[in-house]
């Protein structure tokens, strides 16, 4: 059964090639069939592989496809590694990916044939890149997938390429990612220099022997790569702008692929990070700051997709917090639950936008629960899950991260809880503004409101079920001993790190339960508050003032980046263009030409055509040589 592993990434690649090349010939239904079918078959194969990995006595070993790079002592093979971690990601990527593909067939229905095929080709390439990323058994294959994901995000964010702003957003995503990729690339080079190999197994087995400085350096560089791809401070600004793409693409980027790449990479390199406590602290602090920072921005956004985008940044911050405090299982768990509820929320938002005819401002919505019952119910489940209300999935994963944070430092815990409260607030602000109260849009919009087709609602229902129940894969120990299935499943991946880190302090069960209930109660209060406040929302033209305006304008981070990085760079390039290029280099080139022209005009006068003068010059020169020879002995 393991032999089938090649087909998992290969099928989406084939789908990409067929749809991409035949985009002018294939009919829309054929394109949908190829696009969804390839990913669906990949998903089915992934399930088979998952069952095999789950069976007792499974041993992970890399599958080599072909030798890839051979230089001196360095051997890099193109090989796949199937183990508990990668198979879990396979399921998430292909599973959520399939649902998003199916959803897209309805959402993108109005696109013209070739563009429709182009969309599905990109989507398949995206899934392929992500699969390559999680399947690679060394950092180079992972990096190829990493770059592929970056490329596809560019292509899909700029899918409507006729809009200049969307193109800018696409370029921003690409460039921000490139900055991070440089860190990843440097880390790979350092590993090659240090360990002479980029295989996970070699690097991890040799890492404990190397000095702390080297491991810290490598891990920090890896983390820079992760901040780019997973949208952490300081490289997070591309993610909210990535909303320019079609909504299913946002769901794909935010839930199943792309942003989880950084989490996967750090979870995969858990041994390196455990060996470098400083890096762990950096990861935890950056994650926590991002979680809080993005949550504050989300409080005041009015674009339905922007709120979700900032909530993704914030939730990714939680995952990094989990990684930073050594709760690798918790972070991966949160990746999984987040994939379900964030895909659900984005697809739900897409359904709303679809019904509202591309209206995205939640101030113009309201009362949609009457018109979109399925979307409303599934969206509510998504909101409850992300807010962390038991028994929905977000509660379990977030609780696990927060518990691990508390063991590490109470400060992490306090800020983490504040972030969770803000999450509950902005999600229910979003929910109440969209679905509660009375409709605030135009009559024309109200007239056309109707529930989306089943191709869109079925994925919503499936995701809602997953978002509701997937939390039971990781029930905390205090409720039922040994009930944390995910922990057992992933233990082969993280056991070395656990050994290095040593046994962590255990909290008393009483305290843990008390804190858990306290937090849930606080979240419930916040939800009620947000619900009541925004259900009665009346549209007003009063502009935000004070802190509200700062939050609405996203702390002016884009403006700061513009002033600190973009504008100095631009003026530097203008300087180089005007002064160095035009006056300097052009001056030299033109000057050489002018000197030669002037010189030749003067020397031309010597060519008088008078034989006598030629001979005279010849004689004078000869005499000069004689005189020279008299004074200098050569």
């Amino acid at each position, binding site marked *: 059964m393991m032999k089938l592993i090649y087909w998992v990434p290969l099928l989406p690649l084939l789908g990409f090639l067929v749809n991409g090349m035949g985009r002018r010939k294939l009919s829309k239904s054929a394109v949908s069939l190829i696009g969804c079918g390839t990913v669906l078959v990949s998903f089915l194969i992934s399930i088979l592989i998952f069952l095999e990995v789950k069976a007792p006595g499974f041993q992970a070993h890399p599958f080599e496809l072909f030798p890839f790079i051979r230089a001196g002592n360095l051997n890099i093979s193109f090989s796949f590694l199937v183990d508990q971690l990668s198979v879990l990601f396979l399921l998430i990527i292909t599973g959520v990916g399939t649902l998003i593909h199916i959803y897209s067939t309805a959402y993108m229905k109005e696109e013209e044939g070739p563009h429709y095929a182009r969309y599905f080709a990109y989507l398949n390439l995206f899934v392929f890149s992500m699969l390559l990323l999680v399947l690679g058994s060394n950092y180079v294959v992972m990096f190829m997938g990493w770059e592929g994901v970056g490329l596809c995000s560019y292509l899909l964010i700029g899918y409507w390429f006729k809009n200049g702003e969307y193109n800018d957003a696409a370029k921003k995503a690409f460039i921000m990612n490139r900055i991070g990729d440089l860190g990843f690339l440097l880390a790979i080079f350092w590993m090659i220099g240090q360990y002479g190999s980029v295989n996970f197994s070699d690097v991890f087995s040799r890492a404990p022997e190397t000095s702390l400085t080297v491991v810290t350096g490598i891990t920090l560089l890896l983390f820079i790569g992760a901040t780019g791809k997973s949208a952490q401070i300081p490289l997070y600004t591309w993610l909210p702008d990535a909303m320019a793409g079609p909504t299913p693409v946002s769901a794909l980027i935010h839930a199943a692929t792309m942003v989880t790449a950084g989490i996967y990479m750090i979870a995969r390199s858990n041994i390196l990070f455990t060996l470098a406590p400083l890096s762990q602290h950096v990861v935890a602090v950056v994650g926590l700051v991002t979680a809080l920072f993005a949550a504050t921005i989300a409080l005041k956004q009015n674009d339905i997709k922007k709120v979700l985008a900032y909530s993704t940044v914030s939730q990714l911050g939680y995952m990094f917090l989990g990684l930073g405090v050594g709760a690798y299982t918790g972070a991966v768990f949160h990746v999984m639950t987040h994939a379900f509820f964030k895909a659900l929320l984005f697809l739900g938002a897409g359904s709303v936008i679809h019904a509202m005819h591309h209206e995205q401002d939640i101030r113009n919505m309201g009362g949609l629960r009457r018109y979109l019952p399925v979307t409303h119910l599934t969206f509510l489940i998504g909101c409850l899950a992300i807010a962390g209300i038991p028994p929905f999935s977000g509660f379990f994963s977030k609780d696990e991260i927060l518990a691990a944070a508390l063991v590490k430092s109470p400060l992490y815990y306090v800020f983490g809880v504040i972030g969770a409260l803000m999450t509950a607030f902005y999600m229910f602000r979003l929910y109440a503004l969209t679905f509660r109260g009375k409709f605030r849009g135009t009559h024309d919009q109200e007239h056309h409101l109707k529930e989306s087709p089943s191709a869109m609602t079925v994925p919503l229902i499936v995701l809602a079920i997953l978002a509701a129940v997937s939390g039971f894969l990781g029930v905390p120990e205090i409720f039922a001993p040994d009930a944390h299935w995910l922990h057992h499943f992933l233990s082969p991946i993280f056991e070395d790190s656990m050994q290095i880190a040593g046994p962590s302090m255990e909290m008393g069960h009483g305290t843990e339960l008390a804190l858990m209930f306290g937090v849930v109660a606080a979240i419930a209060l916040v939800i009620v508050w947000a619900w009541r406040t925004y259900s009665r929302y009346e549209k007003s033209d009063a502009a935000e003032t004070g802190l509200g305006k700062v939050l609405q304008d996203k702390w002016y981070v884009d403006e700061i980046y513009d002033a600190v990085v973009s504008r100095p760079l631009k003026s530097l390039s203008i300087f180089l263009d005007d002064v160095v290029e035009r006056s300097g280099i052009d001056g030299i080139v033109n000057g050489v030409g002018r000197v030669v022209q002037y010189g030749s005009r003067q020397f031309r006068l010597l*060519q*008088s*055509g*008078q*034989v*006598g003068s030629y*001979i*005279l010059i010849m*004689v004078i020169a000869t005499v000069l040589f004689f005189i020279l020879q008299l004074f200098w002995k050569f």
Partner: protein
Amino acid sequence: MPVNYYIFLSAALFCIGIMGVLTRRNAIVIFMCVELMLNAVNLLLVAFSKMHHLRALATDAQTTVGTDAQLFVFFIMVVAAAEVSVGLAIIVMMYRNIHSVDVNFLNRLKH
């Protein structure tokens, strides 16, 4: 006779030749001056050759050192004669074309 005399004589002849070439415009006169320069050098060759031969004779009565250049001069004269015939032919052609042997008319390359 000391070799100095020959050197001065040939230097004088050579200078006369140069001055002639530089100052005169008649192609035939220039040509004669060129010949004068050539023969000044020839004269010097013979003089040095003779000098070397006398030196060598002082140690060995049978030696032939220094005689070869005296023969070589004849070859130069033969070549010079061939050259003269070509040169004069050119001057004749020149006169036929422009009805003058003034070299200052021959500045058409300039244009």
